[in-house]
């Protein structure tokens, strides 16, 4: 199948303005007749639902948490980028665009990224008008900081909880529309399937997580704003409920899944402490501004208290390997350096999977008070989780899965190849290529929801007769029956192993073979083992309780069943991409200094996988990427 990305013609800087001009309008009287189903209430979902309702569409919005405000966006800490140039340090829309394309290691669609940079400035205006309490300077102007190695200060933030504040802003806009009657909210509701009628997405099937009721909802368009699939690795910095179910079920109904192997590993997380571990906690990477990363030179020293290891016996891995960037080397490079040291048997802490992040020198230089002012909340968090005092002894950190760049394929209108199905926020694949820059995900979620979809959805809806499909249609009955049958099937297996035990095994396998570094042999092994594990899951899982009450085990079973299939596609994509780029590192493809070696000639495309009826035999479609504005170059951080 050919993929048409519907990129508007004309110069890059004019594409979005032109597209807005050319986009269809729907007359206000008609808008009320259209129902839009928005799955997800994170930054992307809440902002889309609120804005579409303001425009006059009827909106139904769904989330699995007990309140829209608890979507995983709430956990973002660091900040949000915008090309405001308030600091007068030379920032511009073009520079943000350029940084994002380059940061994505030339695997993103230029036109989408440019639009993202353009609307970034409107996001900040919108949030401030809603009462988002961004940090400010004494003069009353908004404060900025530089983030993730950017050369300009374009990051807006709110006291280490930027995600919560932006989400509360979008949630308040959503509440305004709920109160006005434009949005009907369905919390504690999980989407189980997309319903297609004549090849168009016309509805969804959901399970009410309180009563267990499986229901159909018909609409004129469906928006998936369901976040990321990082929990396929079991341990990640994601919330426990993050899943691939919505996008995976849509994939099985025909939507292409693009670049699943692009996953981001964050270097500064608190290491695993035991096999009971349920999630990993991220600490802001700003810690690397003052902390020095090291491991013992000799494997024999790993058990020694760090203070007893002499300076000359320490290996400051990043400073040694990347003298000019040192401890501030990019996320992927820093993560791999930590992994290598641990693979060599020089890792510290339980299980030998950790490196030291040492503040002794910074404390000596600036005093503990200054360090506490800068990072006090992070030291406190570290202490809460590990019981150790980071001022007295070095912290231990290890990389963890943090973000997924892959997602459902969408065109410039954010519509998937399945007509009517739109995908926003982290759930789509479009803006970050093979690697996302810090503070750019929040920007994308809100850009998609507040500014892009409200314009582009009309290009689809204008060709639809509102309300032409209802939940009485046989396709809905069938989808409800399928979902009901799956629920019964889980409850009837009555095997020996818990859902979590399978999830953990799958996650460890994928982390091992398709994590920070990947190679052909490992990926092939994973592709052998995943189907076997999946088969065991379907024969030996146990799901206690019943289907018609609150039943967290049943919810988890559905999510893990989808991870079992999706994990295979993830590895297959990683195996097929015979190059290294951004977060996808194939050990066979690297420069002598360990930098990722792209193959632009053969792999300058987005890999959009098509479900063929057999999970193990997906078909590959390619969207060729062209770079008109930003010239292909090798990233170097030496």
């Amino acid at each position, binding site marked *: 199948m050919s993929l048409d990305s519907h990129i508007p013609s004309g110069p890059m800087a004019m594409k979005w303005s032109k597209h807005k001009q050319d986009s269809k309008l729907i007359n206000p009287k008609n808008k009320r007749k259209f129902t839009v189903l928005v799955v997800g209430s994170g930054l992307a979902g809440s902002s889309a639902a609120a804005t579409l309702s303001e425009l006059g569409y009827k909106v139904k919005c769904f989330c699995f948490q007990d309140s829209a405000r608890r979507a995983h966006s709430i956990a973002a800490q660091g900040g949000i980028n915008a090309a405001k140039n308030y600091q007068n340090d030379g920032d511009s829309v073009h520079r943000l665009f350029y940084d994002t394309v380059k940061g994505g290691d030339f695997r993103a669609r230029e036109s989408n990224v440019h639009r993202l940079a353009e609307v970034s400035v409107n996001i900040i205006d919108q949030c401030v008008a809603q009462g988002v309490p961004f940090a400010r300077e004494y003069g009353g102007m908004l404060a900025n900081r530089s983030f993730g190695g950017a050369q300009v200060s374009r990051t807006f933030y709110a006291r280490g909880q930027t995600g919560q504040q932006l989400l509360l802003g979008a949630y308040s806009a959503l509440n305004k529309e709920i109160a006005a009657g434009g949005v009907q909210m369905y919390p504690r509701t999980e989407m189980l399937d997309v319903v297609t009628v004549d090849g168009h997405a016309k509805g969804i099937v959901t399970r009410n997580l309180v009563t267990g009721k499986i229901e159909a909802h018909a609409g004129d368009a469906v928006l998936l704003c369901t976040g990321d699939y990082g929990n396929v690795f079991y341990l990640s910095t994601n919330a426990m409920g993050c899943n691939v179910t919505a996008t995976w079920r849509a994939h099985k109904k025909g939507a292409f899944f693009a670049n699943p192997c692009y996953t981001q590993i964050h270097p500064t997380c608190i290491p695993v402490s035991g096999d009971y571990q349920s999630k990993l906690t991220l600490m802001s990477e700003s810690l690397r501004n003052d902390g020095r990363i090291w491991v013992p030179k000799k494997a024999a020293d790993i058990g020694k208290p760090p203070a007893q290891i002499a300076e000359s016996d320490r290996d400051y891995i990043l400073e040694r390997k990347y003298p000019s960037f040192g401890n501030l080397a990019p996320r992927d490079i820093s993560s791999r350096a930590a992994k290598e040291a641990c693979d060599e048997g020089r890792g510290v802490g339980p299980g030998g999977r950790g490196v030291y992040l040492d503040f002794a020198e910074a404390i000596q230089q600036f005093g503990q008070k200054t360090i506490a002012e800068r990072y006090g909340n992070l030291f406190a968090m570290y202490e809460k989780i590990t019981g150790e005092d980071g001022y007295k002894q070095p912290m231990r950190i290890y990389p963890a899965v943090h973000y997924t760049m892959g997602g459902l394929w969408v065109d410039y209108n954010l519509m998937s190849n399945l007509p009517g199905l739109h995908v926003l926020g982290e759930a789509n694949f479009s803006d970050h290529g093979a690697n996302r820059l810090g503070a750019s995900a929040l920007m994308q979620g809100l850009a998609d929801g507040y500014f892009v979809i409200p314009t582009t959805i009309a290009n689809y809806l204008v060709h639809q007769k509102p309300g032409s499909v209802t939940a009485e249609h046989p396709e809905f009955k069938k989808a409800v029956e399928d979902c009901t049958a799956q629920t019964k099937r889980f409850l009837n297996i009555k095997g020996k192993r818990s859902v979590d035990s399978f999830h953990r095994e799958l996650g460890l396998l994928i982390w091992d073979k398709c994590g920070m570094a990947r190679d052909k042999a490992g990926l092939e092994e994973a592709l052998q083992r995943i189907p076997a594990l999946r088969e065991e899951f379907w024969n030996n899982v146990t799901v206690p309780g019943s289907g018609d*009450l609150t039943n967290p085990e049943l919810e988890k079973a559905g999510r893990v069943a989808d991870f079992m299939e999706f994990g295979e596609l993830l590895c297959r994509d990683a195996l097929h991409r015979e190059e290294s780029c951004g977060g996808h590192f194939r050990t066979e493809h690297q420069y002598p200094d360990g930098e990722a070696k792209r193959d632009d000639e053969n792999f300058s495309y987005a890999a959009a996988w098509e479900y063929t009826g057999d999970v193990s035999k997906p078909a590959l479609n390619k969207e060729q990427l062209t770079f008109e504005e930003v010239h292909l170059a090798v990233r170097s951080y030496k």
Partner: protein
Amino acid sequence: MSQLNLHLKVWRQNAGQPGHFQDIDAPDIPDHASFLEMMDIVNERLIAKGEEPVAFDHDCREGICGMCSMQINGVPHGPEKATTTCQLHMRKFRSGDTIWVEPFRARAFPVLKDLVVDRSAFDRIQQAGGFITVRTGAPQDANALPIGKEVADAAMDAAECIGCGACVAACKNASAMLFVSAKAGQLNLLPQGKPEKDRRTLGMVRQMDKEGFGNCTNQYECEAACPKEISVRWITKLNRDYAIAAVKEAFGNAPKAGGGGD
């Protein structure tokens, strides 16, 4: 790392039915585990025995989403100051301890199952005015409205509330004043929020009353239980804002209370 041998008394209940405490032994719990990881371990063992695991709410497990709840030894979010249940770790307990684990208790938070309660009343309170009426795409440049750092910081103090409901569970009257005052206070303080201040205050407070939360009698248990250390000073501010709005309303020069506004 050491292991703890614990004894749990856990509340079990199905919606609409009476509940009871179940005695569960929890031996060999690693002291590095979080409280919820301890519950995970307990649940895995229940499943292995063919019993139904204990249902509880949780999501982020890093103290920010406000989804986890639980009353631990009678205290919402347990014994550690400024800490949510998900951030509480087992090293704060001793081997041999008996731990009581209950849902947040309040009339306005009915139990859905075991430790899971329905906190949707909080959403409805916010829908009754917890917003600034502004359309997407309409605003002026963000820096066109300078806001002093002190005001911005104070609004941020209030905005830290994670909507968990521990304040309600801690209060003997099950009052929601700390939550409502933080939510209304953030917006009432900011210049952007001023035009709708009276309407917001009346709407949110009246919705709170309608939801069946109790009255605030200034016991301040809420502040002690709040994982984000929201100050009771916000309650004082809300009382003041409410008095002003009510007087204006009585004299007929305040906009009608509540929700609405497109």
